[in-house]
Each structure stands twice: as structure tokens, then as C-alpha cells.
């Protein structure tokens, strides 16, 4: 055999006489001319014109197909159609018959569905030598001895249904083989050449100028024509000649089964020279074309036919013996190969037969083990690599864990990474291997690995960095940089290399978000070590950051779109400067300069650090920082927290700042206190002068300090003029400080006494004046009661025309025409003139209701109640018995000022006019007060009230005391009330002009129903002064009005 170097195996078992001699029995003494198979049946035709249809169970159906002989036959693979060419009569008259053996005719034979002459009428009769039927049952080709080929189209099963054509240019040598490739191409093999014909265009192309014997061409794989010649087997495609396999010998038959090419050669001709008398023998060779093996090779006696049906080969020998070649199953094939250590072949076979991945892995593993045991570590690893994903990696790794096996191990691990099966440990191991190898022979594998930018090897970068970092920080750095593991990079630069500058440069290259994040993370350390650079970077970050590598003008700016600059909040960075005030100041100043909308934190921090620096810096520089702080403090845009700043200033003793802040917050008293603490009374005074008008208590603060004597005169003058403190308290206060001499206060005392004196004089004058007025009134009453009143007015007070009867006269000397009076007057009892000037007051609401309404309305009901208490309303009245006076006096509950001054109002009741205001509220009607001072005798009924002088004094006292109380709560107003020489107010009682000297107010609870409203000092103060003896009252008898 000329098959030289192809490996030989025996993948087929031979079973002889598989049919138990049935075929031999059937065929007996004829010879098989043609054998074909398909559709689960084998068809054998013999020289006597019989066809034998053999089923798998070796049941034979025989029928007479032709009278004489059957020369060609083809069974369709998937249909029960058998196409035969044979002769019914002597001569050259080939007939095509198509049998449908699924149907039977009346003789029980398969039905012949078509009979037609093979040779067209225009041709000379010639022997048919080749037959091809397309599987689609629509194409049928017949080749003839004279080289012509006829092609029939149309359903082969129907009589004369299709068209017939004779193909041109097919040469003149006998056609030996025909094969359809698809529906449009027909391979034609003749003795002289190989051609391909396009059935549609009926065009023929010669592929090769070599022919073949009959049966020595077969269509392999459905597309390749395989042709056997004596020297080789050639493959053809429709394009042309393909590869060839040199195989010498006379080929008798070619068959194709799955991927096997079955070649039957005539061995006798080979050996003819050596042994002529040996019986004829044929040799069967089965080639696995794909894998290039000889899978079976055996000599048999003369072979009539090779059939491929029922999943394997059957050989029919000349002796009518049916030999079955059973293909071994894959497992036994493989074990055969393993025994010979032909793992690579095994793999090839297994993969060509679509062995499952797990099984393949097992083969690879066995192969790898085999190679490993042979010591071929590198090749072994190639096999192991193929097991990745199925085989436990530790199995392989353990084998290679010696240092001299590192390279294969690296290869394995790299593959593992590439395929994505690597775990952390694998990465670690791989890197460790790199390191070891590098230590050995400095191949720079690690570097190579690190610099593999496109990430050929898929590995866990973090793990890699971790490992590499332990070996070589530089490598780890470039690894981190390559894979953009900024965090690692920075951590290593900062922690391992301490190259802070480099870290900064790196950050500056990053995108904004990253830069921001890492600056936050590492900023502290960076600022510690590279304050200047870090600060600059931070400035950038917080203003208009761009990665350093970015072009200055990028696309967006070119296209004109406004790019919202990325900027981070300086707030986040402030804490990083912890120990470096100068840098922080630099940073924050920059921030504030570029953007005024900085948060309060920024300003706070800036001020704080200014002050810190100020505190630390030498005297010479203090001034500049002081200036800076003040600039910030005074900046109206600066959004700093005043309280916090104040605390800082106080902590560090930054007085300028404190003062400024006090000023801002209107804390003048604190300002004064500060000045006084520092002993700078003059400054304190200046504050007083500036702000005293708004806040008179400043003066008192200074007074209580105590101030140096030099300041006293001014102080006292203000206290006096503004009546800030009662003189007695001033003296008390000054007396507590031993430094003052009488001389310091003499002028003040003199002034006070003088003014007191004046007041007394004035009061006395008033008193005497009132006395005289009273006398006058008494006289008038006397007159009215006892004497006639002469109405002298000649004009009507209403129309101002001369009076004419009838007239109405009033005791108030007003006279009216009766008409006028009726027109103007609303009630008959009142003089319209007097009524109009003093409208009748409305009835005051009940005292209890008032209290309730106040309690409800007031935001601080308790304050209301306590106020009532404070005014002694719920107390038993302390009756002060006065020596009898000309006008009867009634002791009343302490006349209180109007309850109006709420706490808020009280807070404002300083400064000029405050007292006047209070009086106004208390006296309620200016008219009352004015009438008092103007010594006006009340000529008319209601408007004039003699306000008791004592009350005025009392009010004054209370003013003093309230200020004092707020200040130091040393004195109680009650004391004054009692002590005051003017404390016995005289109220003219209307109903009971004379009253017993001692009254208990048992029934004077203001909330009692029987309570006399007139005594309620709070009764409707807006309209009606409670002390107004002329105020309208329920019980008031209008008739008693002397003026009505």
C-alpha cells in the first residue's frame, strides 16, 4: 500500500455472515451487477434482471425488474423510489424504470411508476454507463458509453412528465460517474476528464484532464467530488481541483460514509507479479479524511459491493457473504488511542465527533499528565490550558509550584486570566511568579505585564497592585496609573514614596470629580507636606478646575457653549489646613477674592485663622492682620457667623474685633463693659456719648463701674438730665466706691437738690392754687344751690341769633331757641354745646371681662396676672390714713399706671420722652394732664380732672425703679410707693364724697359682680379714665351733675 505516513487504527470490527446466508441463498447462482441502498433498504440487482429489496431484518423481496438484466440502479435515500436502468430485450435499448416499492401491483411486486427509454430518439443507441438521481426527485441524469449525458427534469415518478436535454461538450469517452451537487451542478466523470456542468445553463467546465474508472468517483460531504485514480485520490470542487491524497493501486470502488472514504482496491493486481495463483483479493481501506487517519484496513476476498446503510458498512463479497463492519464507539476508540498515548489524535477525533467539553477536558488532562510525566512541562501546560474552566486549577498549579516550573505556570495563569477564570489568589500567584522570574533572569515580565495597557490579561487590578506594591512600589505605581486606580496610586505615592509633589501633580491631571475626591481624601497629608503646592491646587479646584492635561480651550468652549466650571466647595477643605493657618488664609483669601458667595464657614474660618495668626505674630505684623480682619468683618458681603466670630475674638483677646462685633450686634453695653474692664473709662464714655441716646443704660453701666472721678461730672450730668437714676441711688452707688470725694458729686447734688426744691415750690404753688380753685367751686355750688341764676345770654348758642321765646336755658349759661335745642339736642337733659365738646363716655366693660379678655389675648397670661398682683389688686388694701384734709380723700388701691406697658414696651421705655410716654399712657388723655398744669378751672362738665399730684410723683418713682429693677433688683417699687411723701393720692369720689376713713375691700374684688366699676383702675382705660370722677357710671345720677 502506498499510504505512507498516515496513522493506522482499527476502528471497525468485522462481523462476518451477518445475514445468516440469506442473501447467498437468494442470489444463489447469479451475479450482482449493481447494489444500492437507501431508505432503510438495500437493493441488489443481478444479471438476470431481478431486483432484490432487502430490509434490515434481512427479509428479501425479489421481483423481476427487467427481462434481461439490470445495469444501473439507484435507491433514493429518503423515498421508497428505486430508479433502475436495464434491458428488456437484446440489443442496446436501455430502459429507465422507476419503482415505488411502497406500493405493490397485483402480482405483489413493487409498482413500476415509470418506464422510459434512456436513449433519446435523436441519438444512436448506446450503453448507459452512469446514473444519478437528485434527492429532490426532479432531476435525473444518465451518462452513456459514447460520452453523452442526458438530463431529465421533472418528477421522476411520473411518466414522461419532464423535459429531457442532452448536455453539450461532455466529450466522447465513456461516462463513468455522475453526481449532483445541489440542484444546479452536476459533476461528470468520464474516462478522460472530470467536468462540472451547470444544469441550468447546460454549460460544462473541465476541471481536470484526468478520468476515472466506473464507481471510482463519489461525492464526499455533499460538495466535494472525490475521484480515485491509480496514483492518487483527487478532490474536486466546482471551482477546480483541490487537494489530493497519493494512493497507489488499482481502485475498484469508492464509497463515502459520514466522514469516511471507503476505498476498495484490487490487491491481486499489486501482487500479481509475486503470487499469481493466490485467489483474487480486494482490500478495503477506510480513510478518515478530516483527521487524516486510516481507520480500517483489511483484505477480503473479491468484493462485489460496498453498502453504506443502517449506520455502517456492509460488504458483499463475490461469495454472497454479507460482512458487517461495525464502527467502534467513541469511548473504545479513545481508550485505544490512550493506550498508544495518542492523545492528540484522541482529541482530534473527540472534537470532530462533537464530544462534550467535559470529556474533552478529561482527555486534555490525561494528555497533560502524560506529557508532564514525560517531562515535557511546556507542552503539558498547553494541554492543561485547554482544561481551563473545567478542571480544578489547583490540580495544575500544584504540579508546577516549583521554581523551575514557573514559566509554564505563568503561561497557565495568564491563560486563566485571559479566560476570566482567575480569582484573586491566581492573580497573586501570577504576580509572585513574575517577581520570582524577574529576580532570576531579569526578563522584566512584571514590567511587561504592568505595561500591558489594553488589558490583554483580565485580572483583578486591585489585587495586582496590592501584590506588586509589596515588591516594587514603582511598578505598582505604573500599574495603578495604567489602570487608573487613582486611589491606589495616590496612596502609594503618599504612604510609600512620600512624594507629595508627585501626588499633587497626579491629582492635577485627574478629572474634576476624581481630583475633588482624592484631594478630600489626601489633602490633609498633602497640605502638611507641600503646603504651597497643595494650596494652589485647592485654589484651582475651588475656582475653575480643569485637568492639567486638558487643552486650554476645549471643544465646548470653541463652539461657544458655556461650560459650567466644575468647582468644589472650599468648606470641604478648610479642615485640612488645621495646623497651617498661613496657607489656609492664603487659600481662603483667594476664595473670597474670586467668589464672594462663599459660605459662612469660609468666612468664619478665615476670620478665625486671621485672628490665630494675629495672636501669634509679632507686634509689628499685628496691625496688618488686624486690618485684614476688620476688612472682612466690615465687608457687607461677608457672610460670617457673628456669634462664632465673637467667641473666637473673645477667646484670643482680639479686642478690635470684639468691639466691632459688639457694635454690629448693638451690644453697646458689652462694649462699655469691655472698656470698663480694661479700665478705659474714657472709651466707655465715648460709647455712651455715641449710643447713650438709644440706650441710656450705658450711662448707668459706666456709673456702676465705677468710673474714674474725671468722668463723673459728665456722667452725673447725663444721669440727672435724663433722669436715669434717682439721686438717692446715685449716691448709694457712688458711696460704695471710696475713691470719690464729695467734691466730685457736689455739683450734681446741688443740681438735684435745686431741682427738687423747684419742684416742691411748684407743687406747693399748685396745691395752693387748687385749694383756691376748690374754694371757688364750692362758692359756685353754693351760688347755684342757694341763689338765683340769671340767664343773660341774648343769643342762641346754637344758631347765634338773638334769643326769642320759647327758649331753653341751662345752668352752664347756654341758652337755645327751643327749636334749635330740639334740633341739636339728643337728650333733653343735656346741653348740646357741652355734650358736643365732651362726648358721653361709653360704659366700661366689666372688670372681670377685661381681665379675661386680656388673659386670652395676651401672649403671657401669667405676666398679666402678676401685673395685677403687682398692682395690689388682689391684696387687702393697705389703707393709709391721712390727716383730714379740706377735700375728703378716699384711700384706694394703689393707683397703678396704665397696664399697657407690656414687657416689650418697657424695654423701649428709655431715653428721652420715655417718661412722657408713660405718663401719656397713664393719664390717658393729654387733655387731663394739660388741664392740670394749665390750672384751668373746669368750667364745663367733664373734661377737666384734677389729677392728683402724688400720682405724678409716683410715676416718676416707678420709672426710676423700673430701670433699677431691671439692673439690679435692689429696690422694690412698693417701698417707694409707701415711702413717697406724695403717696397718698386724693381721689374725688363722686358718689360718696365723704367716706369713712377705714375701708376694707372685702367686697372689692374686681371680679365680684358687685364690685364697683368706678374703683377699677383698669376699666376701659382707652375711653374712660378710671380716676375720672366724672366718668359715666351706671350708678351715676345724672341729676346730680351740677352742670347738667
Amino acid at each position, binding site marked *: 500500500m502506498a499510504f505512507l505516513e498516515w496513522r493506522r487504527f482499527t476502528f471497525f470490527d468485522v462481523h462476518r455472515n451477518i445475514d445468516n446466508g440469506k442473501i447467498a441463498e437468494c442470489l444463489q447462482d447469479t451475479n450482482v451487477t449493481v447494489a444500492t441502498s437507501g431508505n432503510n433498504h438495500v437493493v441488489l440487482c443481478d444479471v438476470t434482471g431481478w431486483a432484490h429489496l432487502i430490509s434490515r431484518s434481512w427479509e428479501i423481496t425479489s421481483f423481476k425488474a427487467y427481462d434481461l438484466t439490470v445495469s444501473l440502479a439507484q435507491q433514493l435515500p429518503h423515498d421508497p423510489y428505486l430508479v433502475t436502468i436495464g434491458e428488456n430485450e437484446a440489443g442496446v435499448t436501455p430502459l429507465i424504470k422507476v419503482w415505488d416499492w411502497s406500493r405493490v401491483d397485483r402480482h405483489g411486486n413493487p409498482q413500476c411508476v415509470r418506464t422510459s427509454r434512456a436513449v433519446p430518439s435523436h441519438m444512436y443507441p448506446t450503453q448507459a454507463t452512469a446514473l444519478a438521481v437528485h434527492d429532490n426527485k426532479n432531476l435525473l441524469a444518465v451518462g452513456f458509453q459514447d460520452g453523452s449525458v442526458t438530463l431529465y*427534469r421533472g418528477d421522476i415518478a411520473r411518466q414522461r412528465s419532464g423535459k429531457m436535454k442532452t448536455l453539450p461538450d461532455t466529450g466522447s469517452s465513456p461516462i463513468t460517474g455522475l453526481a449532483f451537487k445541489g440542484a444546479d451542478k452536476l459533476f461528470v466523470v468520464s474516462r478522460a476528464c472530470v467536468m462540472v456542468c*451547470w444544469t*441550468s445553463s447546460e454549460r460544462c467546465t473541465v476541471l481536470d484532464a484526468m478520468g476515472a474508472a466506473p464507481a471510482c468517483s463519489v461525492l464526499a460531504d455533499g460538495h466535494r467530488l472525490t475521484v480515485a485514480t491509480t*496514483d492518487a485520490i483527487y478532490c474536486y470542487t466546482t471551482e477546480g481541483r483541490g*487537494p489530493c491524497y497519493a494512493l497507489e493501486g488499482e481502485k475498484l470502488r469508492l464509497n463515502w460514509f459520514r466522514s469516511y472514504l471507503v476505498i476498495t482496491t484490487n490487491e491481486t493486481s499489486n501482487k500479481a507479479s509475486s503470487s499469481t495463483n493466490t485467489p483474487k483479493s480486494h482490500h478495503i481501506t477506510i480513510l478518515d479524511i478530516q483527521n487524516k487517519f486510516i481507520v480500517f484496513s483489511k483484505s477480503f476476498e473479491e468484493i462485489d459491493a460496498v453498502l453504506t446503510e443502517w449506520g455502517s458498512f456492509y460488504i458483499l463479497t463475490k461469495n454472497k457473504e454479507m460482512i458487517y463492519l461495525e464502527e467502534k464507539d467513541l469511548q473504545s476508540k479513545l481508550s485505544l488511542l490512550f493506550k498508544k498515548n495518542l492523545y492528540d489524535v484522541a482529541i482530534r477525533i473527540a472534537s470532530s465527533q462533537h464530544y462534550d467539553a467535559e470529556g474533552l477536558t478529561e482527555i486534555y488532562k490525561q494528555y497533560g499528565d502524560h506529557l508532564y510525566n514525560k517531562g515535557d512541562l511546556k507542552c503539558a501546560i498547553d494541554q492543561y490550558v485547554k482544561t481551563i474552566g473545567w478542571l480544578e486549577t489547583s490540580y495544575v498549579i500544584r504540579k508546577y509550584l516549583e521554581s523551575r516550573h514557573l514559566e509554564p505556570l505563568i503561561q497557565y495563569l495568564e491563560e486563566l486570566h485571559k479566560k476570566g477564570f482567575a480569582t484573586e489568589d491566581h492573580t497573586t500567584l501570577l504576580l509572585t511568579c513574575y517577581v520570582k522570574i524577574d529576580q532570576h533572569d531579569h526578563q522584566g515580565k512584571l514590567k511587561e505585564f504592568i505595561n500591558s495597557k489594553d488589558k490583554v490579561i483580565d485580572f483583578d487590578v486591585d489585587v495586582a497592585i496590592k501584590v506588586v506594591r509589596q515588591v516594587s512600589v514603582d511598578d505598582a505605581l505604573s500599574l495603578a496609573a495604567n489602570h487608573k486606580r487613582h486611589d491606589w496610586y495616590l496612596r502609594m505615592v503618599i504612604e510609600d514614596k512620600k512624594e507629595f509633589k508627585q501626588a499633587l501633580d497626579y491629582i492635577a491631571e485627574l478629572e474634576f470629580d476624581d481630583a475633588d475626591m482624592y484631594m478630600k481624601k489626601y489633602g490633609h497629608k498633602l497640605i502638611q507636606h507641600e503646603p504651597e503646592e497643595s494650596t494652589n491646587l485647592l485654589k484651582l479646584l475651588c475656582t475653575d478646575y480643569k485637568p492639567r492635561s486638558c487643552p486650554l480651550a476645549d471643544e465646548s468652549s470653541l463652539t461657544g457653549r458655556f461650560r459650567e466650571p466644575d468647582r468644589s466647595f472650599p468648606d470641604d477643605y478648610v479642615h485640612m489646613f488645621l495646623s497651617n493657618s498661613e496657607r489656609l488664609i492664603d487659600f481662603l483669601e483667594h476664595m473670597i477674592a474670586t467668589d464672594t458667595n462663599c459660605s459662612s464657614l469660609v468666612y468664619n474660618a478665615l476670620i478665625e485663622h486671621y485672628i490665630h495668626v494675629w495672636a501669634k505674630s509679632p507686634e509689628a505684623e499685628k496691625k496688618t492682620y488686624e486690618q485684614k480682619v476688620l476688612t472682612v468683618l466690615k465687608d457687607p458681603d461677608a457672610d460670617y457667623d457673628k456669634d462664632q466670630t465673637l467667641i473666637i475674638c473673645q477667646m484670643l483677646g482680639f479686642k478690635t474685633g470684639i468691639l466691632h462685633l459688639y457694635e454690629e450686634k448693638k451690644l453697646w453695653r458689652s462694649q462699655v463693659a469691655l472698656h470698663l474692664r480694661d479700665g478705659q473709662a474714657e472709651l466707655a464714655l465715648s460709647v455712651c456719648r455715641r449710643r447713650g441716646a438709644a440706650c441710656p443704660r450705658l450711662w448707668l453701666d459706666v456709673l456702676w463701674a465705677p468710673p474714674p472721678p474725671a468722668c463723673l461730672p459728665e456722667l452725673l450730668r447725663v444721669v440727672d438730665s435724663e433722669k436715669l437714676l434717682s439721686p438717692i441711688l446715685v449716691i448709694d452707688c457712688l458711696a460704695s466706691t471710696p475713691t470719690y470725694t464729695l467734691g466730685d458729686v457736689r455739683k450734681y447734688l446741688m443740681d438735684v437738690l435745686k431741682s427738687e426744691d423747684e419742684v416742691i415750690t411748684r407743687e406747693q404753688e399748685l396745691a395752693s392754687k387748687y385749694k383756691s380753685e376748690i374754694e371757688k367751686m364750692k362758692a359756685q355750688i353754693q351760688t347755684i344751690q342757694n341763689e338765683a341764676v340769671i340767664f343773660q345770654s341774648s343769643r342762641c348758642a346754637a344758631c347765634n341769633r338773638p334769643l326769642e321765646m320759647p327758649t331753653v336755658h341751662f345752668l352752664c349759661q347756654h341758652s337755645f331757641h327751643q327749636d334749635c335745642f330740639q334740633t341739636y339736642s339728643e337728650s333733653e337733659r343735656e346741653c348740646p354745646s357741652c355734650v358736643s365738646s365732651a362726648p358721653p363716655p361709653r360704659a366700661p366693660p366689666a372688670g372681670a371681662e377685661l381681665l379675661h379678655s386680656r388673659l386670652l389675648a395676651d401672649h403671657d397670661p401669667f405676666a398679666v396676672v402678676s401685673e395685677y398682683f403687682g398692682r395690689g389688686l388682689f391684696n387687702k388694701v393697705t389703707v393709709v390714713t391721712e390727716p383730714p384734709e379740706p377735700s375728703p380723700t378716699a384711700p384706694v388701691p394703689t393707683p397703678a399706671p396704665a397696664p399697657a406697658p407690656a414687657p416689650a414696651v418697657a424695654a423701649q421705655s428709655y431715653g428721652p420722652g420715655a417718661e412722657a410716654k408713660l405718663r401719656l399712657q397713664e393719664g390717658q388723655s393729654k387733655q387731663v394732664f394739660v388741664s392740670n398744669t394749665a390750672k384751668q378751672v373746669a368750667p364745663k362738665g367733664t373734661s377737666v380732672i384734677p389729677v392728683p399730684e402724688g400720682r405724678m410723683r409716683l410715676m416718676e418713682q416707678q420709672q426710676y425703679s423700673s430701670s433699677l429693677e431691671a439692673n439690679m433688683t435692689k429696690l422694690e417699687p412698693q417701698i417707694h410707693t409707701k415711702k413717697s411723701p406724695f403717696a397718698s393720692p386724693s381721689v374725688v369720689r363722686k358718689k360718696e364724697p365723704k367716706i369713712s376713713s377705714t375701708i376694707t375691700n372685702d367686697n372689692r374684688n374686681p371680679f365680684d359682680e358687685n364690685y364697683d366699676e368706678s374703683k377699677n383702675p383698669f376699666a376701659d382705660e382707652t375711653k374712660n379714665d378710671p380716676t375720672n370722677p366724672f366718668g359715666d357710671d351706671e350708678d351715676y345720677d345724672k341729676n346730680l351733675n351740677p352742670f347738667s
Partner: protein
Amino acid sequence: MAYAYLFKYIIIGDTGVGKSCLLLQFTDKRFQPVHDLTIGVEFGARMITIDGKQIKLQIWDTAGQEAFRSITRSYYRGAAGALLVYDITRRDTFNHLTTWLEDARQHSNSNMVIMLIGNKSDLESRREVKKEEGEAFAREHGLVFMETSAKTAANVEEAFINTAKEIYEKIQEGVFDINNEANGIKIGPQHSNAGAGGAGGAGAGGAPPGGCC
């Protein structure tokens, strides 16, 4: 896959010089240390790009053994390029070059581009043929020379691609009659329709698919 041109190559040289390995390396990018002997002729194809054009290389790998010489000779015809391979570790393979060259020149068209390949350049320690000798031989016979290693894939791509470039240049110069298939050059399907008008007769698939009647 559509291609602009199809070039037929043939690899020739003594047995065992690594012809099949060169082909395997070029088409499959792998190396098989143990390779069965080539019986007859084998076959491989790969697409390359030259000058922006897709070119299909159809490579015939012949058996080097003298026994198959008659078969392989029939494959010379219709090759546009030939790789003449010798083994730098075996001087006799170098000595036989002349015979091979004569054979090739005799059985192929005269325009065939022949490249001389000294294979197994990875086995430097066992070198018997100097590179200079190879260069000299190539210069003498008007060949392109290159040393390759099918094992390490060194210069393998270059060898095939350089040959293709040379052929391509010749086409551009008009040396090859691209319509004559005997030259081993075929115009791709889309080309033949667009460019060479009369080329339809070459049979590259001019027939429309004829439907079944």
C-alpha cells in the same frame, strides 16, 4: 467572503523542510511539532489585505517526497506564486533548490513570483546554511529571500504577504493577464462584474441560479 483577487500559491521544497508547518502557521496560527507527512497535496486559504483590497490566498501545500513529484507537478500550473522552501539546518535541502526551481519554472507560467524561504530560523544552533548563501542564491535567480520560522511564526506572515504584494504590483503593472486563470489569479465576484467586462467567460460564476422546472 468577498475578495478582490484570488491568488494561487504553491509551496515547494524538499520533504521535511516545514512546508506544511508554514502553511499551518499562516492559516491557523499554530505550530504542530509532530506533523504527519504530506501525502499528495494539501490545501489552505486565508484572507489578507493589501492596499486596502481583500485578497484571498489559496495555498497548495505539496508533498516534498520524490514519490509524489508527478502528482505535485500537476499543481504547478495555475499558480501565481511559489514559496520555495529549504531547511537552514540541512544543507542538502539547499542543494536541491536548483532542481526545484527548474521544475517550477518548467511547469508554471513564466510570470510566477517565487520566494525563497529559509525555514527553521529558530534553530540557529544547528544552522548549516548561512543566510548570506540564501541571499546570494536568491539574487542569482531573481527571487525574493526571507528566513522564517514556522515554530515562532517569525516572518511567516511577511513571507506570504510580501509575495502577494509582489504579485499585486505585477498586476498593477499589467504583467499578469488577470483574465487568464491559468496565471493563478482570479478576480473576485464583485470585481469581475464591475471592472473586467469580458471576463465573464472565465466561468467565475456568471450563471444565474437556474430554478427547478
